[in-house]
């Protein structure tokens, strides 16, 4: 999916404004001024990209290191998770930071990544009642995925830590820290270092 998305994106069709890879499909958003037959044009474009050969998976995505503070102040669901998973909070943090993650898609909110690669021992369902507000930069888990909340928004995932990085900043040339296909590693940082990134 990521390889196809990259190929279609690089094909630079003048009528395709957006190429959006998601878990359940790939969307091509056409300019409404396009006069032709949209399904035919989309099929032709995708077929051509596949015929010409998709980029290798190595060509898709970058390696990104994300500093995370797993202090209980930021990872405010660690205590509850510890109880549920029967693992000490430090062990949850260690296992979370040990994984290599792949960004499956960016969606829900600008810059919000869905990442696979969570240690199966940490898999928990989403919280029954979502929190009204989860602070920006919160790193959270559910099922076998991890996410980072770009803004203070409501969310139902269990929060294990927080990154001092800005996940989305419209005033940066590259507004989103992460894109679909990126390989992500979390690096634990101590509480006293958290402020040094801002």
């Amino acid at each position: 999916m990521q390889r196809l998305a990259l190929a279609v994106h690089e094909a630079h069709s003048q009528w395709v404004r957006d190429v959006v890879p998601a878990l359940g499909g790939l969307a091509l958003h056409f300019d409404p001024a396009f006069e032709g037959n949209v399904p035919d044009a989309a099929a032709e474009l995708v077929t051509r990209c596949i015929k010409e050969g998709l980029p290798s998976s190595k060509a898709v995505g970058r390696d990104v290191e994300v500093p995370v503070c797993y202090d209980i102040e930021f990872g405010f669901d660690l205590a509850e998770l510890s109880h549920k998973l029967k693992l000490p909070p430090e062990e949850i943090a260690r296992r979370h930071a040990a994984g290599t993650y792949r960004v499956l898609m960016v969606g829900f909110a600008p810059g919000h990544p869905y990442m696979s690669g969570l240690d199966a021992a940490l898999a928990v369902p989403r919280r029954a009642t979502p929190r009204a507000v989860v602070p920006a930069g919160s790193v959270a888990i559910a099922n076998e995925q991890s996410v980072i909340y770009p803004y203070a928004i409501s969310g139902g995932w269990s929060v294990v830590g927080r990154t001092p990085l800005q996940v989305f900043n419209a005033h940066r040339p590259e507004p989103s820290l992460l894109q679909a296909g990126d390989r992500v590693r979390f690096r634990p940082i101590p509480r006293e270092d958290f402020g040094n990134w801002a």
Partner: protein
Amino acid sequence: MGLEILRPGLLTTVQDLGRHGLQHVGLCPGGAMDPAALALANALVGNEPGEAALEITVLGPELRFRREALVALGGADFDTTLPHNRPVLVAAGTQISIGRAKRGARAYLAVAGGIAVEPVLGSRSTFLPGRFGGLEGRHLRRGDVVPLVPGCSALSRKRFATLRHRRGRSVPWWAPALTVPDREPVLIHVMDGAHLADFDAAVQRVFFDTVWRVAPDSNRMGFRLSGPQLARQAGNEILSGPTCLGTVQVPAGGTPIALMADHQTTGGYPKIAEIVSADMPRLAQLAPGGTVHFTRCSLETAAELRRDARVRLDAVLRGIAWECAG
């Protein structure tokens, strides 16, 4: 040089045609809820169709023009002394009060030269959820001064002087409001959603037979539609998939949501229908409490409707351009 906000109204924001090409990082295009009305207002003051203007919602603002300016209010009919859908050269110091919407829900106040806020990611549109774009990423407040382009007054006088027909500070004609509904329920065309078949035949009938009401908690992100609840057959888990302007999704509670300009780019709820792009501006003209009725159409019909809407808008824009080129 600016436009003083004496009273902000319910939700007044700077909007243009939005920012494209960033949906893969979760950012929807946003922009004017009714781009046709925006294009109309802009054409009336001699601007390009996508120039930034003020989007006024349901209850309008009160403003004061510090300098002379050519302005036009396009789209919904509001209770105001400013004539609708006409260019008006307002004198320096003029105060304009825009009251309640009488027909439709959204109007655009365009000024010659446009609104001079800094573009963010290629657009001047306010994106409220991300708090960027427009004026400091927020809706207008009392005391704000909305920046206009330098030389706006001179440009305004020049453009007004080239109008073929003038009467006083305005013109003896007006442009037709293309998207403001005459009556309700508004009939909106939809194509089958990706998960329509996940709803059994009776539920599908309910969706198409119901006159839906736009719920009070609707906003620029989505219109919640109150009416009967739509139960989905217990079935396949839905993977989070791409969404689009006009996607109608049905969360677990059974209340459908039509995705509007500031929508999420992906969603994990079943998609029952996709509203055709030609009808989105008319839907955007519904205020909370407004009613809507859906009729099913094919992709080919959707394309025809889109072309028809384009042709109608282009004809009106050409007519206005002719009046402006005296």
